[in-house]
Protein backbone atom coordinates (compact mmCIF):
# COMPACT_ATOMS: atom_id res chain seq x y z
CA UNK A 1 0.00 0.00 0.00
CA UNK A 2 2.80 2.39 0.93
CA UNK A 3 4.47 1.39 -2.34
CA UNK A 4 1.35 2.36 -4.24
CA UNK A 5 1.10 5.77 -2.58
CA UNK A 6 4.80 6.51 -3.17
CA UNK A 7 4.46 5.44 -6.79
CA UNK A 8 1.50 7.76 -7.43
CA UNK A 9 3.19 10.67 -5.64
CA UNK A 10 6.43 10.43 -7.60
CA UNK A 11 4.69 9.61 -10.88
CA UNK A 12 2.72 12.86 -10.55
CA UNK A 13 5.90 14.78 -9.66
CA UNK A 14 7.70 13.27 -12.67
CA UNK A 15 4.90 14.18 -15.09
CA UNK A 16 4.54 17.74 -13.74
CA UNK A 17 8.32 18.24 -13.89
CA UNK A 18 8.52 16.89 -17.44
CA UNK A 19 5.67 19.15 -18.57
CA UNK A 20 7.32 22.17 -16.97
CA UNK A 21 10.69 21.23 -18.47
CA UNK A 22 9.36 21.36 -22.03
CA UNK A 23 7.22 24.48 -21.57
CA UNK A 24 9.49 26.91 -19.68
CA UNK A 25 11.00 29.74 -21.70
CA UNK A 26 14.36 29.83 -19.93
CA UNK A 27 16.59 26.78 -20.66
CA UNK A 28 18.18 26.90 -17.20
CA UNK A 29 14.75 26.60 -15.54
CA UNK A 30 13.99 23.73 -17.93
CA UNK A 31 17.18 21.96 -16.88
CA UNK A 32 16.31 22.28 -13.18
CA UNK A 33 12.83 20.87 -13.79
CA UNK A 34 14.43 18.01 -15.69
CA UNK A 35 16.65 17.28 -12.66
CA UNK A 36 13.51 17.00 -10.55
CA UNK A 37 12.00 14.62 -13.10
CA UNK A 38 15.13 12.40 -13.13
CA UNK A 39 15.23 12.25 -9.33
CA UNK A 40 11.58 11.21 -9.04
CA UNK A 41 12.24 8.55 -11.68
CA UNK A 42 15.11 7.33 -9.50
CA UNK A 43 12.64 6.89 -6.62
CA UNK A 44 10.42 4.81 -8.89
CA UNK A 45 13.47 2.69 -9.82
CA UNK A 46 13.99 2.02 -6.11
CA UNK A 47 10.34 0.91 -5.83
CA UNK A 48 11.05 -1.47 -8.73
CA UNK A 49 14.06 -2.91 -6.84
CA UNK A 50 16.62 -1.50 -9.26
CA UNK A 51 18.79 0.00 -6.50
CA UNK A 52 22.03 0.27 -8.45
CA UNK A 53 20.30 1.86 -11.44
CA UNK A 54 18.59 4.37 -9.15
CA UNK A 55 22.01 5.46 -7.89
CA UNK A 56 23.38 5.62 -11.44
CA UNK A 57 20.33 7.63 -12.51
CA UNK A 58 20.99 10.27 -9.86
CA UNK A 59 24.77 10.37 -10.42
CA UNK A 60 24.89 10.23 -14.21
CA UNK A 61 21.67 11.95 -15.28
CA UNK A 62 20.89 14.42 -12.51
CA UNK A 63 24.55 14.95 -11.69
CA UNK A 64 26.59 14.79 -14.89
CA UNK A 65 24.30 15.18 -17.90
CA UNK A 66 22.13 18.02 -16.63
CA UNK A 67 25.22 19.76 -15.20
CA UNK A 68 26.73 19.60 -18.68
CA UNK A 69 23.56 21.18 -20.08
CA UNK A 70 23.72 24.02 -17.55
CA UNK A 71 27.41 24.60 -18.32
CA UNK A 72 26.74 24.79 -22.05
CA UNK A 73 23.85 27.23 -21.50
CA UNK A 74 26.26 29.34 -19.44
CA UNK A 75 28.94 29.15 -22.17
CA UNK A 76 26.54 30.17 -24.92
CA UNK A 77 25.56 33.34 -23.02
CA UNK A 78 22.18 33.62 -24.72
CA UNK A 79 20.60 37.02 -25.13
CA UNK A 80 17.16 37.28 -23.55
CA UNK A 81 15.32 37.75 -26.83
CA UNK A 82 16.29 34.44 -28.38
CA UNK A 83 16.32 32.03 -25.47
CA UNK A 84 12.81 30.70 -25.60
CA UNK A 85 10.56 30.76 -28.58
CA UNK A 86 8.00 28.25 -29.65
CA UNK A 87 7.34 27.39 -33.24
CA UNK A 88 4.39 29.06 -34.94
CA UNK A 89 0.87 28.22 -33.90
CA UNK A 90 0.14 25.76 -36.72
CA UNK A 91 3.12 23.56 -35.89
CA UNK A 92 2.32 23.71 -32.18
CA UNK A 93 -1.22 22.54 -32.90
CA UNK A 94 0.07 19.76 -35.16
CA UNK A 95 2.48 18.65 -32.43
CA UNK A 96 -0.29 18.45 -29.85
CA UNK A 97 -2.57 16.47 -32.18
CA UNK A 98 0.25 14.07 -33.02
CA UNK A 99 1.13 13.47 -29.37
CA UNK A 100 -2.51 12.83 -28.44
CA UNK A 101 -2.75 10.25 -31.24
CA UNK A 102 0.47 8.53 -30.10
CA UNK A 103 -0.68 8.49 -26.46
CA UNK A 104 -4.00 6.98 -27.51
CA UNK A 105 -2.17 4.24 -29.40
CA UNK A 106 0.09 3.49 -26.45
CA UNK A 107 -2.98 3.27 -24.23
CA UNK A 108 -4.72 0.77 -26.51
CA UNK A 109 -1.54 -1.29 -26.71
CA UNK A 110 -1.17 -1.45 -22.92
CA UNK A 111 -4.84 -1.92 -22.05
CA UNK A 112 -4.62 -5.71 -21.72
CA UNK A 113 -1.55 -5.70 -19.48
CA UNK A 114 -2.88 -5.43 -15.94
CA UNK A 115 -0.23 -7.83 -14.64
CA UNK A 116 1.10 -7.39 -11.14
CA UNK A 117 4.83 -6.79 -10.91
CA UNK A 118 7.24 -9.28 -9.42
CA UNK A 119 7.64 -12.85 -10.52
CA UNK A 120 5.23 -15.47 -9.20
CA UNK A 121 7.94 -16.98 -7.01
CA UNK A 122 9.13 -13.57 -5.84
CA UNK A 123 12.37 -11.95 -6.85
CA UNK A 124 15.60 -13.61 -5.83
CA UNK A 125 17.49 -11.95 -2.95
CA UNK A 126 19.99 -9.33 -4.08
CA UNK A 127 17.97 -8.48 -7.19
CA UNK A 128 19.07 -5.17 -8.66
CA UNK A 129 21.88 -4.54 -6.18
CA UNK A 130 25.38 -3.53 -7.21
CA UNK A 131 26.79 -7.03 -6.70
CA UNK A 132 24.26 -8.73 -9.01
CA UNK A 133 24.63 -6.01 -11.65
CA UNK A 134 28.42 -6.20 -11.49
CA UNK A 135 28.48 -10.00 -11.77
CA UNK A 136 26.32 -9.89 -14.91
CA UNK A 137 28.29 -6.94 -16.30
CA UNK A 138 31.61 -8.77 -16.09
CA UNK A 139 30.41 -12.20 -17.21
CA UNK A 140 27.60 -12.25 -19.73
CA UNK A 141 27.82 -8.60 -20.80
CA UNK A 142 31.58 -8.12 -20.83
CA UNK A 143 31.73 -7.64 -24.61
CA UNK A 144 29.08 -4.84 -24.68
CA UNK A 145 30.87 -3.30 -21.67
CA UNK A 146 34.13 -3.07 -23.61
CA UNK A 147 32.30 -1.65 -26.62
CA UNK A 148 30.66 0.99 -24.39
CA UNK A 149 34.05 1.97 -22.99
CA UNK A 150 35.39 2.47 -26.53
CA UNK A 151 32.27 4.48 -27.38
CA UNK A 152 32.80 6.76 -24.39
CA UNK A 153 36.43 7.29 -25.41
CA UNK A 154 35.30 8.16 -28.95
CA UNK A 155 32.73 10.57 -27.51
CA UNK A 156 35.38 12.34 -25.39
CA UNK A 157 37.75 12.68 -28.35
CA UNK A 158 34.91 13.79 -30.62
CA UNK A 159 33.70 16.41 -28.17
CA UNK A 160 37.24 17.77 -27.81
CA UNK A 161 37.76 17.90 -31.58
CA UNK A 162 34.39 19.58 -32.17
CA UNK A 163 34.27 22.08 -29.33
CA UNK A 164 37.94 22.52 -28.42
CA UNK A 165 39.66 25.76 -29.20
CA UNK A 166 41.05 25.67 -32.73
CA UNK A 167 44.80 26.26 -32.73
CA UNK A 168 45.33 29.00 -35.26
Amino acid at each position, binding site marked *: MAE*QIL*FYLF*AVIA*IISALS*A*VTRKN*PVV*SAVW*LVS*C*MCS*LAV*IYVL*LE*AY*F*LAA*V*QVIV*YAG*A*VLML*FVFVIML*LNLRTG*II*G*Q*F*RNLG*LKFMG*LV*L*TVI*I*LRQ*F*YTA*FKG*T*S*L*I*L*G*NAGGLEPG*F*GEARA*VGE*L*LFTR*YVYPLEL*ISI*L*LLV*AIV*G*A*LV*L*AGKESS
Partner: protein
Amino acid sequence: MISLHQLLLLSAVLFVIGIAGFITRRNIIIMFMSVELMLNAANLALISFANHSGSMDAQLIALFVMALAAAEVAVGLAIIITVFRNKQTVNVDELNILKW
Protein backbone atom coordinates in the same frame (compact mmCIF):
# COMPACT_ATOMS: atom_id res chain seq x y z
CA MET B 1 1.11 -3.40 -5.58
CA ILE B 2 2.07 -1.36 -8.59
CA SER B 3 0.78 -2.92 -11.79
CA LEU B 4 2.77 -3.14 -14.99
CA HIS B 5 -0.04 -1.26 -16.71
CA GLN B 6 0.47 1.87 -14.60
CA LEU B 7 4.23 1.83 -15.12
CA LEU B 8 3.94 1.46 -18.88
CA LEU B 9 1.39 4.27 -18.92
CA LEU B 10 3.74 6.56 -16.97
CA SER B 11 6.53 5.65 -19.38
CA ALA B 12 4.27 6.39 -22.37
CA VAL B 13 3.20 9.75 -20.93
CA LEU B 14 6.82 10.82 -20.34
CA PHE B 15 7.77 9.66 -23.85
CA VAL B 16 4.91 11.62 -25.38
CA ILE B 17 5.83 14.75 -23.40
CA GLY B 18 9.33 14.36 -24.83
CA ILE B 19 7.97 14.10 -28.37
CA ALA B 20 5.75 17.15 -27.84
CA GLY B 21 8.71 19.16 -26.57
CA PHE B 22 10.84 18.06 -29.50
CA ILE B 23 8.19 19.09 -32.03
CA THR B 24 7.00 22.36 -30.52
CA ARG B 25 10.19 23.95 -29.25
CA ARG B 26 12.68 25.72 -31.50
CA ASN B 27 15.51 26.13 -28.97
CA ILE B 28 18.00 23.40 -29.88
CA ILE B 29 19.08 22.88 -26.24
CA ILE B 30 15.52 22.24 -25.05
CA MET B 31 14.94 19.92 -28.01
CA PHE B 32 17.99 17.99 -26.84
CA MET B 33 16.59 17.82 -23.30
CA SER B 34 13.37 16.39 -24.74
CA VAL B 35 15.41 13.59 -26.31
CA GLU B 36 16.90 12.85 -22.88
CA LEU B 37 13.36 12.68 -21.49
CA MET B 38 12.40 10.13 -24.13
CA LEU B 39 15.46 7.99 -23.31
CA ASN B 40 14.43 8.06 -19.65
CA ALA B 41 10.92 6.93 -20.50
CA ALA B 42 12.39 3.97 -22.41
CA ASN B 43 14.60 3.16 -19.42
CA LEU B 44 11.58 3.16 -17.11
CA ALA B 45 9.81 0.64 -19.38
CA LEU B 46 12.92 -1.57 -19.46
CA ILE B 47 13.25 -1.57 -15.68
CA SER B 48 9.53 -2.34 -15.25
CA PHE B 49 9.95 -5.36 -17.50
CA ALA B 50 13.06 -6.43 -15.57
CA ASN B 51 11.00 -6.46 -12.38
CA HIS B 52 8.11 -8.21 -14.08
CA SER B 53 10.16 -11.00 -15.63
CA GLY B 54 12.44 -11.44 -12.61
CA SER B 55 15.60 -11.38 -14.76
CA MET B 56 18.28 -8.70 -14.56
CA ASP B 57 19.07 -8.50 -18.26
CA ALA B 58 16.73 -5.58 -18.95
CA GLN B 59 18.39 -3.62 -16.15
CA LEU B 60 21.76 -4.11 -17.84
CA ILE B 61 20.29 -2.83 -21.11
CA ALA B 62 19.02 0.24 -19.24
CA LEU B 63 22.53 0.76 -17.86
CA PHE B 64 23.95 0.68 -21.40
CA VAL B 65 21.28 3.13 -22.52
CA MET B 66 22.46 5.52 -19.79
CA ALA B 67 26.09 5.21 -20.96
CA LEU B 68 24.99 5.83 -24.54
CA ALA B 69 23.00 8.88 -23.45
CA ALA B 70 26.06 10.30 -21.68
CA ALA B 71 28.18 9.88 -24.83
CA GLU B 72 25.41 11.34 -26.97
CA VAL B 73 25.12 14.40 -24.73
CA ALA B 74 28.86 15.05 -24.85
CA VAL B 75 29.01 14.97 -28.66
CA GLY B 76 25.67 16.73 -29.15
CA LEU B 77 26.52 19.64 -26.89
CA ALA B 78 29.90 19.96 -28.60
CA ILE B 79 28.07 20.23 -31.93
CA ILE B 80 25.70 22.83 -30.45
CA ILE B 81 28.66 24.91 -29.23
CA THR B 82 30.30 24.72 -32.67
CA VAL B 83 27.05 25.72 -34.40
CA PHE B 84 26.58 28.63 -32.00
CA ARG B 85 30.16 29.76 -32.62
CA ASN B 86 29.55 29.88 -36.38
CA LYS B 87 25.95 31.10 -36.56
CA GLN B 88 25.43 32.95 -33.23
CA THR B 89 22.04 31.30 -32.73
CA VAL B 90 20.42 28.26 -31.13
CA ASN B 91 17.14 28.67 -32.97
CA VAL B 92 16.68 25.68 -35.28
CA ASP B 93 14.59 27.69 -37.73
CA GLU B 94 17.64 29.80 -38.54
CA LEU B 95 19.92 26.77 -39.05
CA ASN B 96 18.78 26.11 -42.61
CA ILE B 97 21.91 26.24 -44.76
CA LEU B 98 21.47 22.58 -45.70
CA LYS B 99 17.88 23.19 -46.75
CA TRP B 100 17.46 23.23 -50.51
